[in-house]
């Protein structure tokens, strides 16, 4: 019986927590599997227990929301099967493969809500592998989790609302923010205003960060693109460019990112269909208005389904749980239908705002075309932009998996998490195709590297030898 198994939620960020809360409120005891040691996800990541920064210091404007989400989970603990520090590395035959403290195990599911979140979208520049260059999300984690700054003189370079937020958080925490380099232009941000006004409160927050940075003497440059991180053994300066020319900034740390990309490997291994999302410029798992995917019993919520931010993650988490409940019961209660519709209304508004964000924070103009051949794109496998162009030209490659097979891009430890956006942009540019046509990198287990030792017990479990 399908109902015999507890529903499983993968991820304990805002989406996963609200999903869990909804299931518990309706009498279920879900299993919550989370890779982190503590709940909250990336956005509401909690510091170690003995750290003393307050929620207000940690989460700023979002502290009330953070408090609400985090304490919701605190209250749920007696009512859920919470499995922190547990990586879902594979899925097969209705069972998730887990890795916890060096041991693998399986978890049977009939219904699973995947809230796998997002990682930084990286468009690399020369020297980006120098010590001192961090992803924007990584820089935020260092601050939120450990109360550390990535450097003494920090430059923020890239695009997207997170760039301003993290720069603000760094400056507020006392770090010296040398400059913020935004690839978007003021005109982009003005043009996006009508969509951004769909959520005046969010827009106001964004404008506040910008104004705050200005007021505190942080140089904000628009239409500005990082060219090269320079330094002997670690970062010493950043070359960047705008309409006026090439400039240099002395710094010992750079945080870079161009928005976020959904982590969709688990949805892929679950065999969900994918569809091109033009606003996000990404192939995303098919996910309907209710959180259902193309696979029965598999639901998606949060940034892993589509990058819409933490508030939308709470809504889509709750909505996916309501859908799961109605699928489980075979019918939806009127109350659930109404609530689900209200949540969808919120999410739709957020999507309009998201469209505005995409417009306000475009990628650097002609990024792929201007990328030098010697730029290292895939740091795991040491594949350069020139290698990609050469492979594409010589072998007539049009598709990203083929490019991976022939050039090794995306084949290393990170399985393309860090490089696939850049590689796809370069392939699209040099073949004259759209990003959509280039396709998406297929996921392969393990989702993250697994040590040999964890698997050694498996033989005694399976025991069978086909030879």
């Amino acid at each position: 019986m399908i109902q015999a198994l507890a529903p499983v939620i993968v991820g304990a960020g805002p989406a996963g927590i609200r999903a869990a809360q909804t299931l518990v409120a309706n009498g279920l005891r879900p299993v919550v599997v989370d890779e982190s040691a503590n709940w909250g996800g990336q956005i509401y990541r909690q510091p170690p227990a003995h750290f003393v920064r307050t929620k207000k210091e940690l989460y700023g404007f979002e502290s009330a929301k953070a408090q609400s989400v985090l304490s919701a989970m605190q209250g749920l603990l007696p009512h859920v099967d919470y499995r922190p520090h547990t990586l879902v590395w594979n899925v097969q035959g209705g069972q998730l493969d887990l890795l916890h403290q060096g041991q693998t195990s399986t978890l049977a599911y009939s219904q699973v809500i995947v809230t796998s979140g997002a990682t930084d979208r990286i468009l690399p520049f020369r020297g980006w592998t120098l010590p001192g260059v961090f992803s924007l999300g990584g820089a935020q984690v260092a601050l939120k989790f450990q109360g550390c700054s990535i450097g003494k003189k920090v430059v923020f370079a890239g695009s997207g609302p997170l760039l301003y937020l993290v720069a603000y958080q760094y400056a507020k925490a006392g770090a010296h923010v040398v400059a913020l380099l935004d690839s978007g232009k003021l005109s982009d941000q003005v043009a996006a205003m009508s969509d951004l006004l769909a959520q005046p409160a969010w827009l106001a927050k964004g404008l506040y960060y910008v104004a705050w940075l200005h007021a505190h003497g942080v140089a904000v440059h628009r239409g500005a693109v990082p060219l090269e991180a320079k330094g002997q053994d670690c970062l010493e300066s950043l070359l960047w460019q705008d309409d006026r020319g090439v400039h240099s900034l002395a710094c010992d740390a750079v945080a870079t990112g161009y928005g976020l990309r959904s982590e969709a490997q688990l949805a892929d291994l679950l065999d969900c269909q994918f569809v091109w999302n033009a606003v996000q410029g990404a192939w995303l798992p098919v996910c309907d208005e209710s959180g259902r995917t193309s696979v029965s019993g598999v639901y998606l919520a949060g940034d892993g389904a589509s990058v819409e931010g933490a508030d939308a993650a709470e809504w889509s988490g709750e909505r996916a749980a309501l859908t799961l409940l109605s699928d489980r019961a075979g019918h939806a209660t009127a109350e659930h239908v109404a609530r689900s519709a209200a949540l969808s209304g919120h999410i739709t508004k957020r999507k309009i705002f998201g469209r505005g964000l995409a417009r306000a924070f475009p990628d650097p103009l002609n990024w792929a075309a201007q990328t030098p051949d010697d730029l290292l794109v895939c740091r795991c496998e040491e594949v350069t932009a020139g290698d990609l162009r050469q492979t594409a030209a010589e072998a007539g490659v049009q598709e990203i998996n083929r490019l991976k097979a022939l050039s090794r891009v995306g084949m290393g430890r990170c399985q393309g998490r860090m490089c696939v956006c850049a590689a796809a942009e370069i392939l699209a540019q040099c073949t004259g195709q759209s990003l959509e046509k280039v396709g998406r990198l297929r996921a392969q287990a393990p989702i993250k590297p697994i040590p040999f030792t964890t698997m050694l017990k498996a033989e005694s479990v399976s025991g069978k030898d086909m030879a």
Partner: protein
Amino acid sequence: MTRRLDSDVAIIGGGIVGASAALFLRKMGKSVTLLERDFCGSRSSGVNYGGVRRQGRSIIQLPLAQRAHVIWGQLPQLLGMEGEYQRCGHLKIARSQADVASLEDYQKRSLGYDLDLQILSGDTLRSRYPWLGQSVVGGSLCAQDGHANPRLVSPAFAQAAKQAGADIHEQSQVIDMAHSRNGFVLHTHKGLEVRSRYLLNCAGAWAGFVAQSFAESVPIEALHPVMAVTEPLRPLMTLSLGVEGGGIYARQAVRGNCVIGGSRGFALDDLRARPSREAIGLVLARTVELLPDLHNAHVIRTWSGTEGYLPDHEPVIGPSGTTPGLIHGFGFAGSGFQLGPAVGEVLSELVCRGSSSTPIEAFSISRFTKVFRPSLQPFQQPKEIFHEN
């Protein structure tokens, strides 16, 4: 709108067999159209283990394997690339005295095929190759066997064929095929019509469908190897490893990643396969027994593929029994990578001369159609289930 193409030879399947056939046919002056459903060399030819070995093959395959060995030696001239091919040696490991006896027996039976096998004791092996584990009781070394990168080599055959003038259509699925006195007519899902005098069936695990279209049924089955690769490690293994009696196989790529394989995955659907968790566990556990240094390594990726197996684990190579001009080359039971280029050359000979200069009678499709050869021996159950690619 239908586009029509006429060529001497049409090939279904752009794996290493079909692509090398296309290349050799072009060298012999034939016009060639190759139809590949996916990308050339992206299926089993491109995702296999990458073993390039003669050792361990059935004795009847050795003449073909020898022929392939010569072609592999000319890879740079043929393809303009090395493909990470190295003759680093292939060691077949014995884990028991019975295994040693079996390796010695193989050594005797394979004399005369220039394999130059050396049987070595466990202690000798460990003193030469200190990275081998204690479970190694002995082994048989074929110093001139080795490995290559199938991701690069197999597509390169198609690329070379294209440069030599073959008309290669990727992402072109054949949706129907027919034969008449005028030859073959194929249609693809993209509206391409291909007419040809000859048709080569190089469709790998899916070749049974092609044969069936010409009223020729073969008991082909699809099986799925389990492959895994570690992060790059310091230089460790200098040989490609197999295990007597099957189990696992392992090699270290130029970049340092150890590629290991064995056991069986499962089909996700007709086109896709994945490794199973049980098989991954089994393969890793066995690998560590042979290679203790891998104990703390990480697996960064796993994969599988779809390989065609016939009941006797021998391929089908040669003319069709039902349809003049149809020539088969498929069913390599997970070990077609090394043979591929030689089979391609044989297929080109069959087209151009009507005969092969390497004996292939044992691989005739007629062994499955008893109507034609009622005297054929019953199939021998193969001793090994696992084959190294």
